[in-house]
């Protein structure tokens, strides 16, 4: 055998690898064995015949199913690296709050910026800040969106201009080359700096350093200026300032064309102070308004009278006359010239069509409230005799001994906050005289808002124009260099809107783009100038500079030095957000009215009042000067008075509309001065006859996709001829015969005699707090729903609510509420979770106005809950009506059955068109809703949840006030109260049980968790019929 093997070993063809000799030999027996060794299935043999047996088949099938499913691999896990070193004070998933400030024209207040994982998502009010105490404005909320505006500039740009300076093509440049060019140019002298309102002490210091380097002339201008007020202060009292009106001390307020609750200087602080004094139980104030247009202030008036803009002075001086003749104040009663002047106006006033004896009655009431009254006048836009009116108002306040009490000149905005059209006019003149070589523009947009002033033409005479703004806007395209500015949320700054309160602004995010703050630019340029100060030399960045200023200026004050070193002081101020540098309770040094200033009245006494219609430009609450126009939240923010969004329009009184045969939305040709503008008509109840109103802030051409082409630019009509920047002028309209759709979010403007907003006079309220509330005896077959732990509820005080709409945008920011655009607002598809209904009461010519915020009522017997077939909206055991978005299929039955119609439907995928990086402004706490589902106010359920978990982890009971809804938090008037109704000590429980609280549509027995407190008017009678009187013909109760 061995031999055989060896023989074969030699003979056969080699098998390369072999296990045994048998294999090597290819022994047939062995081969058979091998085949059997790894027999694929014992069953195959068992059943014999080969082929696929049943079990084999099943096995193969199972295997193939398994194999095919191997094809579908799970998404590969991708590891992310967590923070190797977690940033301090940051817990993933929890927001951080940074104290900061918001500057908006002349208004400035403290804010808290909510940041999550390093990106700011919302701006809230700083509850500690003495100006707003947590109150916010719609604009302040909307400011967050401008940070993420996709149309911001991402780096410095140079305009490639041709000889005519008309080529607007831009190229990117580097900061080095830009700085080199600019510094060289600055060294040639003739530098002008055009700035908007600027209250920053540190920036002011920096600019003065800059000025010493280059010899800079500074001009302060903004489209909305209060130069008449500051000038009149100078003429009447000797110091140019913008006084702080203290509405919280004012018992009796007369406003003549002054919208202090809507737009005037500092409306948020005004609204807070005004509302604080409006409690009917605690000496409620009284507001008398004389006005031409219907302003937000006018809607809140106790008594309102319509006058033409040119009659402001007449009314004020007639009041002076009444006071002089009736009260005979010692200092003024014997001034012959004054008496003569006043009696002239008193005569004129008799032809104004005001109720007989009104002015003498007002004078008596004013006199009895002297020292606690306040007379304010003047819009944010200059009129022909607005300076004289301011002088008259100063005189009245002085006669009434209000000066120093309600008119606080010590706390005033200092001259830093002042802007004037005269400054711009001066700059234009100097440019035209070729005295200016370089213009640096920051924080104002004259290319847009001074379009009629000749500024753009004059600017072409400058050798170089540098613009520090955030986008290539109307001014940007006229500039040679655009240095992209930081967004305020990316930048350090400070502000002193009223003297004594310095607010810090800290960056809350790394700059998104290659931007550089204006101050950094100025610092860089100053360093290159001659003899830079040591402050400039020492500072590497604007941050260093700011701190140095603070160290020198505020920390050096003895009171501060005592306790801390500068770092501690700095951290404390940063934490608090502001610093009070003065003891404000100190009595103000007295000052007296300078009678020689009456010459400003005498100058216009003989001005012939034009017989034709007057056009009055006005800023709106939402867009104000137009600077935040590219923020969709503000464009879709319904005007508090007209409820129209996405447009400006010519407001016309109902009487004028009848005589000119105008309908709502008719397009008219407006002729004012030499300019023509085609604008749609809005018929505004309560507007004075013979007056047209047109809002500024619209008609942007280069603000961005949102704002471009929305409305018409009313600044084009502003007159710069006789007097610079005058916004009132004679105007005619002619019909074009065409129509235009105005997007109004409210369908009907009368309450139709229903009990919706209950009004009572103060006297009625004092007799019976529940006056005019018609109650229903409700019966039910069912037991009440149990709410074992908490029962959330809300009370909205209609008497405090001014209708400003801050809550609307607050909610939008908090709850990721989408904007839908004009087309869909027209179709009735706006998405606001909280809306403010505004009703007119009484005759259209002269109605009273009420505002009513409407949120989801979270009814105990919610009609929506019963009808949802898939239970996507259910009642919680805490009384909230919860919406389950991912369960909702979108039958929309709930909305149909909701008597308050607070539900909003996602008609399309509204999130899809949200452009990057706007999505960063979304609140991760709140679901972004898909198309086809319903949504509505949740009572900020996520806030309730997080407060409850926090209380639980801290093992503390939940306190009243721990949970605030977004709307409540932002309300400057504190009109909204939220809390636990099960807690007998809670504020909301107490207000809920107040006699003047009522449920909306109580008779439907929906048992809302939201109640309203009736609106009280401090007047003798109410306008129009009260809801209940037509409701049940005075039967009292019925069941």
């Amino acid at each position, binding site marked *: 055998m061995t031999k055989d093997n060896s023989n074969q070993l030699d003979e056969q063809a080699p098998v390369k690898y072999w296990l045994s000799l048998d294999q090597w030999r290819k022994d047939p027996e062995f081969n058979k064995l091998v085949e059997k060794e790894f027999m694929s299935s014992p069953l195959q043999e068992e059943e014999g015949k080969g082929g696929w047996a049943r079990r084999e088949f099943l096995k193969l099938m199972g295997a193939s199913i398994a194999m095919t499913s191997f094809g579908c691999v799970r998404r590969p896990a991708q590891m992310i690296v967590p923070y190797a070193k977690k940033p301090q004070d940051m817990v993933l998933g929890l927001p951080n709050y940074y104290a900061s400030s918001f500057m908006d024209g002349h208004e400035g207040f403290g804010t808290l910026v909510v940041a999550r994982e390093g990106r700011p998502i919302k701006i809230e009010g700083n509850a500690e800040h003495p100006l707003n105490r947590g109150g916010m404005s719609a604009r302040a909320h909307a400011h967050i969106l401008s940070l993420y505006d996709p149309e911001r500039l991402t780096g410095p740009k140079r305009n490639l201009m041709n000889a005519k300076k008309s080529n607007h093509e831009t190229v990117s440049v580097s900061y080095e080359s830009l700085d080199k060019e600019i510094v060289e140019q600055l060294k040639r002298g003739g530098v002008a700096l055009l700035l908007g309102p600027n209250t920053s002490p540190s920036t002011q210091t920096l600019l003065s350093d800059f000025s010493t380097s280059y010899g800079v002339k500074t001009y302060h201008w903004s489209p909305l200026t209060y130069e008449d007020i500051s000038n009149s202060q100078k003429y009447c009292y000797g110091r140019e300032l913008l006084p702080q009106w203290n509405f919280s001390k004012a018992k009796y307020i007369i406003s003549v064309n002054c919208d202090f609750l809507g737009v005037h200087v500092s409306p948020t602080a005004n609204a807070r102070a005004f509302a604080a004094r409006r409690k009917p139980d605690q000496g409620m104030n009284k507001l008398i308004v004389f006005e031409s247009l219907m302003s937000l202030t006018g809607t809140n008036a106790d008594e309102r009278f319509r006058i033409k803009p040119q009659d402001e002075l007449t009314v004020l001086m007639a009041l002076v006359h009444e006071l002089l003749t009736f009260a005979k104040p010692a200092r003024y009663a014997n001034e012959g010239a004054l008496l003569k002047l006043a009696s002239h106006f008193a005569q004129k006033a008799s032809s104004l069509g005001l109720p007989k004896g009104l002015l003498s009655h007002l004078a008596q009431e004013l006199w009895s409230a002297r020292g606690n009254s306040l007379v304010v006048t003047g819009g944010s836009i200059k009129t022909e005799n607005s300076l004289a009116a301011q002088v008259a108002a100063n005189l009245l306040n002085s006669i009434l001994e209000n000066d120093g009490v309600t008119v606080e000149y010590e706390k005033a905005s200092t001259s830093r906050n002042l802007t004037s059209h005269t400054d711009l006019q001066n700059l234009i003149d100097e440019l035209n005289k070729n005295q200016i070589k370089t213009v640096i523009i920051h924080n104002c947009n004259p290319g847009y808002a001074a379009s009629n002033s000749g500024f753009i033409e004059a600017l072409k005479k400058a050798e170089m124009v540098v613009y520090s703004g955030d986008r290539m806007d109307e001014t940007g395209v006229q500039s040679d260099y655009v240095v992209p500015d930081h967004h305020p949320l990316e930048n350090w700054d400070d502000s002193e809107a009223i003297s004594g309160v310095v607010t810090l602004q800290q960056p809350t995010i790394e700059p998104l783009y290659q931007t550089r703050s204006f101050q950094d630019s100025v610092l860089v340029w100053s360093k290159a100038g001659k003899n830079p100060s040591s402050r400039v030399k020492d500072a590497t960045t604007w941050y260093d500079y700011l701190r140095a200023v603070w160290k020198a200026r505020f920390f050096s004050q003895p009171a501060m030095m005592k306790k801390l070193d500068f770092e501690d002081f700095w951290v404390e101020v940063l934490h608090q957000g502001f610093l009070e540098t003065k003891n404000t309770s100190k009595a103000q040094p007295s000052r007296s009215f300078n009678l020689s200033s009456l010459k400003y009245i005498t100058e216009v006494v003989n001005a012939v009042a034009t017989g034709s219609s007057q056009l009055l430009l006005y800023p709106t609450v939402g867009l104000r000067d137009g600077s935040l126009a590219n923020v969709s939240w503000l464009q879709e923010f319904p005007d508090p008075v007209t409820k129209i969004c996405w447009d400006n329009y010519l407001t016309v009184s109902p009487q004028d509309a009848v005589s000119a045969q105008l309908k709502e939305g008719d397009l008219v040709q407006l002729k004012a001065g030499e300019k023509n503008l085609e604008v749609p008509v809005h018929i505004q109840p309560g507007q004075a006859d013979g007056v047209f109103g047109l809002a500024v802030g619209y008609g942007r051409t280069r603000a961005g996709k949102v704002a471009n082409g929305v409305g018409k630019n009313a600044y084009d009509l502003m007159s710069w001829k006789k007097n610079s920047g005058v916004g009132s002028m004679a105007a005619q309209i002619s019909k074009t015969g065409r129509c235009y759709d105005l997007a109004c979010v409210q369908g009907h403007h009368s309450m139709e005699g229903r009990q919706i907003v209950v009004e009572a006079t103060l006297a009625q309220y004092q007799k019976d707090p529940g006056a005019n509330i018609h109650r229903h005896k409700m019966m039910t077959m069912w037991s009440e729903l149990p709410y074992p732990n908490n029962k959330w509820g809300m009370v909205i005080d209609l008497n405090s609510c001014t209708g400003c709409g801050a809550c609307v945008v607050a909610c939008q920011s908090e709850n990721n509420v989408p904007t839908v655009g004009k087309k869909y607002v027209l179709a009735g598809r706006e998405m606001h979770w909280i809306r403010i209904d505004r009703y007119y009461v009484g005759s259209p010519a002269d109605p009273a106005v009420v505002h009513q915020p409407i949120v989801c009522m979270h009814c105990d017997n919610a009609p929506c809950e*019963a009808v949802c077939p898939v239970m996507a909206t259910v009642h919680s055991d805490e009384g909230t009506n919860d919406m389950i978005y991912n369960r909702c299929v979108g039958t929309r039955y709930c909305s149909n059955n909701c008597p308050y119609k607070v539900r909003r439907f996602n008609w399309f995928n509204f999130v899809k068109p949200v452009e990057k990086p706007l999505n960063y402004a979304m609140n991760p706490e709140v679901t972004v809703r898909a198309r086809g589902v319903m949504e509505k106010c949740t009572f900020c359920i996520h806030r309730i949840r997080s407060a409850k978990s926090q209380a639980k982890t801290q093992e503390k009971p939940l306190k009243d006030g721990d949970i605030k809804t977004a709307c409540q938090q932002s309300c400057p008037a504190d009109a909204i109260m939220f809390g636990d109704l099960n807690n007998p000590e809670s504020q909301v429980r107490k207000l809920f049980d107040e006699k003047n609280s009522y449920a909306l549509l109580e008779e439907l027995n929906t048992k809302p968790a939201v109640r309203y407190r009736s609106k009280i008017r401090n007047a003798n009678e109410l306008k129009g019929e009260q809801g209940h009187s037509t409701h049940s013909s005075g039967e009292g109760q019925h069941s």
Partner: protein
Amino acid sequence: MMKRAPLIWGTKNYADITNDICELLEKVPGWKYFAGLLGAKTLFLVYILAQGVIVAYGMGMMGISHPVMWGTDIITFVFWIGIGHAGTLISAILYLFRQKWRTSIARTAEAMTVFAVMVAGTFPVLHVGRPWLAYWLLPYPNQRGPLWVNFRSPLLWDVFAVSTYATVSAVFWFIGMVPDLATIRDRATTVWRRRIYGALSLGWRGTARDWSHYEIVYMLLAGLSTPLVLSVHSIVSFDFAVSSLPGWHTTIFPPYFVAGAIFSGFGMVVTLMTMVRILVPKFKDYITLDHMEAMNKIIMATGLMVGYAYGSEFFIAWYSGSPYEGFVFMNRAFGPYWWAYWIMVSCNVFIPQLFWFKAARRSIPVMFVISIFVNIGMWFERFVIVVTSLHRDFLPSNWGMWHPTIWDLGAIAGSFGMFLFLFLIYIRVLPAISIAEVKPVLEVGREGGNHDKH
């Protein structure tokens, strides 16, 4: 006793009837039929396009908005569901009451029911915001924990009512056809025809046993369908009546809706029957003027009931003393949608009054025009109920208008396309008149023809 008018005209024997009815299924139709089919199919495609666009982009394509969140889809759904009622009434209730005149129109009326419910059924599914999740309205075992459908919601009752109705109507219709299908099977000349109709006829042999079972099943199903005539539209009316909206929240709705449904259903039957008579002239002997007159009488009677409901709504709105209720009804008649209200009243109450005249009742052109008016009027009735109640409710600030878009119009018009398309196919593939039921009403084999002595 006076001799009753014969139900079938002409001197027909059983073979004639079979031939007349089956002929339609056995010949290639003429160009008129194809022209009609093409038109109907084109409209059907419009429907598919319109609904497709709406599903693709969202409900925002339609005219509905805040506060009118229901519009075309719900209006047209109720309209089609209502149409269906005449079929069930004719086939079930008239059967139970032994109204023999129903025999020659019952089949087609039932077919109309089935198709109308099919068309109607598409609307509530497609009107939801996320139609791909519409099956969540069905209470089926799921993995979503305690999440279940809401049995308090009238929309859920709708799901049950409509699905029950669709099932019962279809079964009833089909069972009634079995003997006829067997006849067609027996006459079939091709293999496939024999196979298809053979399968459909469920092995019918025509034995006495077959007939006995058939009669019992048919009667049971008739009994089962009868309450549906009343219940389905009552439940559809609950969608409105159970809500708290003035103009919807009305106790009169269930009977009012049922009367309206029968009214509109008979209107549609008359429309279709006049069309069938034109399309198939031979059927004039089966669907005689006597039949048409009987239906016209019902139209007039139900029209009066509907008119009574309109009046009593106004009375109750005033009598209740509810300002909201009162306002809604004044707003219906004299508000911005006054034209819709008066179209409704004219078409549903005034125009059918012409049927007081015998000449009008027996004139084919007159009844055709009136039946079209009835259809229009009943669509507007649902429009008035849905839109005018929603567009101005409690809080005036919410008031708004409803403006239809091109997609709304496409969905309305297209739904008629779907209906007509199905109907035209049906006439050619299924026996449009019940052979088995018509034969017994002939006088053949009866003495003196006193067949109606009961």
